[in-house]
Structure formats: C-alpha cells, structure tokens
C-alpha cells in the first residue's frame, strides 16, 4: 500500500526551487557583510619564468587601495606540501598562490590588489606594473609523449589499469581488425558561477568563509592546515553552488587569497575570479589515445588494446581512469591497457564530469563503431554479442547490471531497427541523416557521511549534513528520503547543508552523494525513530510498551504499530511529552568506514546506452543533433524529475564535447586563447533539440540499502562518441579528434 508520505521514486519539484527562481538563493559572492573589502587577482601573462619586479607604489598611492599582496609580502604560512594537500590532491607538490617569484603556468595568480570597492580593485590591478624574466615553456602534449611515464598512486581512489590475457595472441586470433588514434583537447568546466570567496572577519581570527566549492569540509581542511586555524575559527559555508562539474572538488586559489587577505588586514574580504581566470586552474586533461580491436568470425572480441597519454602539470601527477573501463565494458579475454602522463607548463588538470571515463569512452566507443563496420555487424548487435555478464577487470559479479535493458529499451524508443548501415544511405530531403550509438559504465560509490535528524515540538523535522547543492537536487532528494523515513509530509521537513558546523559529509563528487548522504539520512531517521519509540514508551501508550523499532512504522505523521495501525501516536505529541524542545539523533559512520576496508564482493556500477541522430548539410557540413535517446541503468531513482534533468544536462555536455568544446592553447604563449564564453563554445538553447531520457528498471539490494547508484556522470558517457558515429553514418567521414568542428568535415 502506498502511504501519503511515500516520496521516494515520485517526481518532486525542487524544494529549493522558489529560492532559485526568485533570486533569494545566495551564492558565495553574495554575502554582503559589512565593511567588505574587494580583492582582484592579477594573472601572469607568461607561462614560465619568474617575476623580477613588482612596482606596487603607484597602486598603493591610490586612495582606497588597502594593499597589494604578492610573494614579496605574503608570509609563508605553512612550510610543508602536506599542508597544501586537500582531500583529493593528486601526488606531487600542490601549487601555492603568491608563494615565490616562480611562474609555473600562464594566468597564474601573481598578485592580489585589495581595495575599498570592486571598481577600484579592478582598476588598481590593471595598472600594477610587473616585470618578468621569461623562460622557455612546453605546453604541447604531442611534442613530449616520449617523456611520458606511468604515474604513481598519488591520488585517492586511483588504480592503475590492469591488463589480462595476451593481447598479441588475441589480435592474431582475430579475423577482423581495427586500429586508430583518438584525441580531444583540454576542456574547462565553466560553471556559470565564477569562483569566489567572501571571508567575514569576526575578530580574533574567527572567520565565516562563504566559498564556492563542492565540499565545505575540504575547503575548511585546507584553510586550517595552511593558516594554522582551528575548525571553529574557519567555518566554511556553501549553501548554493552555481555549478561544479568537478571544478569545485579542489578548493581553488581565491579561497586561500581571500583568507590570507582577511587575516592580514583583519577585515572582511571578497575575492571573485573573472571568467578569464576560470581558465587559470584545473581542466579536463587533453589525451592522446590509441585503440586496437580484433574480432573472431562470430563478431566476438578476441583482443582489446587501449592506451592513453594525458597531460599533467610540472608539479602534480593528476591521474584519472581513462582506459580501465575498456577492460570491463565488453567481454574479452585478452586486454592490454596503458595510461601515462606527460608533464607540461600548465596548471594541474582536474576531475571534470565523468573524469577519465568521458575521455576514454570517446576512443573506445568510436573504436567499437569502427570495429562493427569492419566486422560487418550492426553497432548495437556487435555490442550485444560482446555483452559482459561479469566484471572481468575485477573478476567479480555485478551487484546488478541492466545494460541489456538500456540497449533494448533505448533502441526501441529511438527506432534503431529502421537504420540502414551504409554511410550516407539515409536522407531527410537534402540533409544527410546519421544514426550512431555509444554507451558507458561508471562507478556506483558510497562514502561515509554523517547526518543529524531532529524533530521539534511543532512536528517539524530538520535533517542536516554538511554536503553540497551544486544543482544535483541534493536538497530535494534528501528531503524526500527524510520525509518518507519519518512518515511526515514533505512540507514538514527541512534539509540543511553546506556548513562545516553540520555533521561531516564527503565532497559532492563521484556520483556518490545520493547514495552516501541518502542512506545516512535513513540511518539517522531510524535512530530518531528509536528515540521517539523510547519516549513513547514512557507515555501512556500500552500498545507500544514492548514494541521494538521493527514493530513500528512511521507514516502519515504518526508512529504506529505495523500489526495494528489503529494503535498510533502523533510524532509531535511524543516530542511535546518529552518536555524537550526537540529530539535529536545522529547516525554512526563506523560500519560504513569498516565496509570500505573490506574487499568488495560485487562490482557496483551504473551503465547507459545512447542513440543519436544527426542531420548534416552536405554542402556546408553543418551538424545538428536532432534526436537523442539516453537509456540509463542507475539503480533506484529517488526523484525522476530531477534525475531526468541531470541526464538531460549530461547529454548537453556530451554534445558540447562532440561538437564545440575545446580550450585552444596557443603554444607560442603557452596560454589558452579562448578564455571567455564567447570563444569557448558551450551549447546554447538553439543547439538542443529532442532529448529523451529513459530510466530502465534496475533493482539492486547489494549496492546499498536504498539501491541508489548515482547519476551525475553516467549520462555523459558515450554521448560524444555516439555523435561522432552518427556523423560517420551520415557522411562517411570518420573524425577521431574532438570536437568535430566543420573544418574537420569539409
């Protein structure tokens, strides 16, 4: 029987919707605390060398300029690299802003001008005279592949790819073969909100730090380590984040600059980056990839070889799983995988939506299309013949895997059976029509998260955890889960997040927030239920006298006996009877932490299959993506409304990757030249046509109690490749270098 207070799985409008559509939702640069100073960052025009002179005097002479900070006057707060490592810092030596005269990359922050107004700080920064001694830089990945090396395991969670079997043997066994090189350029996250930190000086080094981040606790960790502040002194608040996509996983330099300036000047300070400066920290690493596939006469894969070289900075080894997915998505005994890094004079790359997988799936999924053609098979049929029922990379069964359903339901919705295989064989009037497909796999992870649940005497439930809202719907789905868990109407529940004074939560990334925080919400509510039952047993309710927590149910605002639901007590009355203003409970993360230490018994992953239609003008070679069907198997969907939006967004990202997104480095200057939204092209409304999202049913009682797999990244996989494959089908042109701009088709 469905209860009135069942919310999980129901399409629910965002609880933070009214705040977002009326402009009352506050982002980091919008806390207008009194007596605020404004910091403006000056960026290096050279890619390598050193600062020889900073002439701050004329700037300091301007009335209203408070200070010009540079390596010449910023104290060295912390000595060790360790102090500069945030939760997900890769191996190496983290960048320290305004630390010394050395220039490591173009657009590196070299000074911070602090003034009474934003206008003055901006102007003062523009007249700051700095001299540099330039050194020869190297930014072109293809020019130093020979120096590429296998990275260590510096970054938490990174596993080097594992080969198996004998690819050489598999290649020889094959009767059909393909081999090709693939590449894509650097991409920048470009969330709409630019990075900013407002530091409110409360006196005596006590700070409220409003930061743009995907992890308030990560920002706090870095600030406390670098500046030697206590957690109480460095409270980080992040109620809304205007897009993350991975850019906010590591705290960015404006955080350290704003805190430094606040501590030095003993004032409140805001530092906002410009859109140009949004290209001055992490990005999706450029990769050069090689894939070779071989098939037997029946179309089964006899060998898979996938090798990638990715760029990293001179100072950190940024690693991501680019090729590992190629060892698990399809059934094959002989798999050879390789991943190397090459250093350049750039900033360290950074996780960007579906890091590694989005890059690797471009190569693998175009290669699969090429192989299907070489083997004379339909691309969907080819994938079905190579369906992998177990995770061969880990040699583990899947906790669940409904990818076959994604293939079938996606293809049916798209009308794939109408496809004629020959390139250029389908037309819409004058336009060339192409149908292509792709897909992918992404980890279903869960991290320890602490949640507090608190019911007050008015019957209002407040559930809190220091997680983040980056647009993924965290406020909403946690409210749904809490409301259903306590059997309360959704209006009687508030979820609070984004504050380091709340119970600790992991960074918002890895598609793990719904599972990590969601299951912890259930645990905290269960604890609260136990406390309420205990209290009810003190009241005059004989029916509950010997009841255990499993004997009661929370529904429709009441606690009632499962065996006899007429035996019920209103939750509000229980709190009132306690004489306390509220009853609190918090979950424990001990078991979750122990669970992480155990070897896994199942491979836990989400999957998707994407079908794309393009229409190409045969003379102008303009490409329009007219239809996309993205079928996703991601376990239980808590909120189909917000979940659909996440996948819609992923498709938009995939179209961007396929057709326009590219940070263009001018290697003469070692600088990204298109550092603006006018020249770094992202899809706009007119680029987007029909997108259909299908969630196939996938029940999973092993992945975590709620059966959630996460949705932030899986929807992006295979989208760019499917577009490339559709363009091949339309035009006969196989483009292996993303983005597929018109010049590559003419």
């Amino acid at each position, binding site marked *: 029987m469905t209860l009135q207070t069942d919310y999980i799985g129901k399409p629910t409008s965002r609880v933070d919707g009214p705040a977002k559509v009326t402009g009352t939702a506050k982002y980091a640069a919008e806390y207008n605390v009194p007596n605020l100073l404004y910091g403006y960052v000056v960026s290096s025009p050279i890619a390598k060398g050193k600062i020889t002179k900073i002439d701050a005097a004329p700037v300091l002479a301007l*009335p209203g300029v408070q200070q010009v900070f540079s390596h010449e006057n910023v104290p060295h707060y912390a000595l060790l690299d360790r102090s500069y490592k945030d939760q997900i810092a890769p191996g190496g030596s983290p960048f320290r802003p305004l630390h010394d005269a050395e220039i490591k990359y173009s657009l590196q922050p070299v000074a911070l001008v602090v003034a009474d107004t934003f206008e003055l700080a901006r102007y003062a920064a*523009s007249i*700051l005279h700095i001299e540099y001694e330039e050194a020869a830089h190297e930014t072109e990945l293809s020019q130093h592949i020979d120096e590429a090396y296998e990275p260590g395991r510096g970054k938490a969670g990174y596993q080097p790819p594992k080969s198996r079997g004998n690819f050489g043997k598999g290649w020889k066994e094959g009767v059909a073969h393909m081999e090709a090189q693939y590449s894509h350029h650097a991409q920048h996250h470009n969330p709409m909100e630019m990075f900013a930190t407002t530091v409110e000086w409360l006196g005596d080094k006590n700070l409220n730090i409003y930061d743009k981040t995907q992890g308030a606790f990560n920002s706090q960790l870095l600030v406390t380590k670098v500046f030697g502040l206590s957690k109480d002194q460095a409270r980080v608040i992040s109620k809304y984040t205007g*897009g993350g996509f991975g850019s906010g996983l590591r705290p960015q330099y404006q955080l350290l600059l704003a805190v430094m300036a606040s501590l030095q000047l003993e004032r409140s300070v805001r530092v906002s980056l410009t859109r140009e400066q949004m290209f001055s920290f992490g990005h999706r690493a450029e990769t050069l990839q090689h894939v070779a596939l071989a098939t037997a006469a029946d179309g089964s894969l006899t060998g898979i070889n996938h090798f990638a070289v990715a760029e990293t900075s001179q100072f950190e080894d940024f690693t991501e799983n680019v090729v590992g997915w190629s060892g698990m998505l399809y059934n094959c005994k002989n798999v050879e995988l390789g991943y190397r890094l090459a250093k350049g004079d750039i900033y360290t790359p950074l996780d960007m939506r579906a890091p590694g997988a989005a890059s690797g799936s471009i190569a693998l999924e175009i290669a699969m299309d090429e192989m299907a053609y070489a083997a004379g098979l339909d691309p969907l049929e080819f994938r079905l013949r190579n369906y992998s029922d177990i995770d061969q990379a880990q040699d583990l069964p899947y906790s669940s895997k409904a990818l076959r359903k994604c293939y079938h339901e996606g293809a049916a919705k798209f009308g794939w059976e109408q496809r004629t295989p020959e390139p250029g064989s389908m037309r819409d009037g004058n336009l060339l029509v192409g149908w292509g497909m792709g897909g992918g796999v992404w980890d279903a992870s869960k991290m320890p998260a602490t949640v507090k649940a608190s019911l007050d005497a008015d019957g209002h439930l407040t559930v809190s955890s220091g997680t983040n809202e980056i647009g*993924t719907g965290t406020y909403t789905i946690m409210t749904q889960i809490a409301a259903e868990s306590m059997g309360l109407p959704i209006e009687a529940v508030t979820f609070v997040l984004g504050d380091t004074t709340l119970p600790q939560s992991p960074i918002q990334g890895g598609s793990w927030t719904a599972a990590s925080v969601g299951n912890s919400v259930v645990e905290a509510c269960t604890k609260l239920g136990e406390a309420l039952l205990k209290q009810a047993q003190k009241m005059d309710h004989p029916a509950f006298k010997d009841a255990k927590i499993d004997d009661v149910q929370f529904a429709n605002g009441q606690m009632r006996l499962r065996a006899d639901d007429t035996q019920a007590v209103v939750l509000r009355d229980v709190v009132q009877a306690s004489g306390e203003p509220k009853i609190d409970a918090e979950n424990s993360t001990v078991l979750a932490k122990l669970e992480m230490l155990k070897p896994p018994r199942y491979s836990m992953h989400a999957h998707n299959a994407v079908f794309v239609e393009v229409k190409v003008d045969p003379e102008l070679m303009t490409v329009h993506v007219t239809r996309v069907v993205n079928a996703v198997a991601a376990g239980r969907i808590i909120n189909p*409304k917000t979940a659909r939006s996440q996948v819609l967004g*992923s498709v938009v990202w995939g179209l961007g990757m396929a057709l326009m997104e590219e940070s263009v480095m001018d290697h003469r200057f070692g600088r990204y030249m298109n550092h603006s939204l006018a020249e770094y092209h992202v899809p706009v409304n007119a680029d987007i046509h029909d997108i259909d999202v299908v969630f196939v049913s996938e029940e999973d009682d092993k992945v975590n109690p709620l059966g959630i797999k996460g949705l932030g990244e899986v929807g992006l996989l295979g989208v760019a490749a499917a577009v490339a494959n559709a363009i091949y089908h339309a035009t006969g042109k196989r483009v292996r270098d993303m983005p597929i701009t018109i010049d590559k088709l003419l």
Partner: protein
Amino acid sequence: MSQVTQAPPPVALAPTQPVSLTINGQAHTLQIAPWTTLLDALREYLDLTGTKKGCDHGQCGACTVLVDGKRINSCLSLAVMQEGSEIQTIEGLGSEDQLSPLQQAFIDHDAFQCGYCTPGQICSAQGLINEGKARTEAEVRELMSGNVCRCGAYSNILSAVMEVVGRELKIEN
C-alpha cells in the same frame, strides 16, 4: 628574454557621484563611482544579488534585467546610464510567496539545476514575452540562446517558456 606588462599610467580617479535609479518600482540614490556597472550597482551596492554575474562581458546572459520592459545585459551598462529608466530585476518579478507565472513554470518544468543562470533566463523570457517576439518553439530557442545554462536545462527552459507563452497567446486571441 624579459617581458614587461604594459600597464597604463594611473589616472586621476573620478569622484563618486549620486546616481538615482528606479528599481522594481522603488527609487534609490547611490553614491558610486561613474564606472560602476548596473550589475555591480545591483549586487554590491543594493544587495539585489538575484541578478548574477557569469562573465561580466555580455556573453552569458546571467545578468539579464529588464529596462523599460526590455532585456539588457546589466554588465554592459553603467548604472549612471539608467537614470530615469524603470529597471526590473528578478526580485521584482515575484516572490517566494507570490511567484510570477514564469517562475512557477520554471519550477514545474524543472527548468534549472544549480539555479545560477535562472534569474537571467526568467528575465530574458519575460522580456521576449513583453516584446511579443516568442511564438514558436524555434523562436524561443533562438531568442533564449543569449542565456547560457551550463547545467544544460535547455529542454526544460523551452517547455517552461512555451507554457507561459502559450497562455499569453491564448489570452491575446
């Protein structure tokens, strides 16, 4: 090899001056430097932070406000240029208790995720409705293309705007 940044010589700073603005029907007088943009005037001097800064170069549309009913990028206008105009921001379109039809439609169609571009999207949509330009889906897509949404909520933005446009057209007929 050495390089010198060619910084311009300091100029005499222009003094602040009073600037009178009518925003959401309310008169305000600010004492600000004349090079203050309308966007910064709203956000930094009037605490009207619903209008967003996404690029400061007129490239993203996050700062869209209505001036005499028409859409403008407030980052491309100095505040002083808008003396005597009727400026409407997202805060003036509706409130959490009394949402405008577009604001309600954006919630109903889940036409946003992070919410940062949303006020600009809604102001743009309101502007094109005011201007009587949006009739078909293709027109709305085109006319809303000056507002970048990195979360990729475009399909839902289109549905939300079409719902309100459809209602307006019905009333007209």
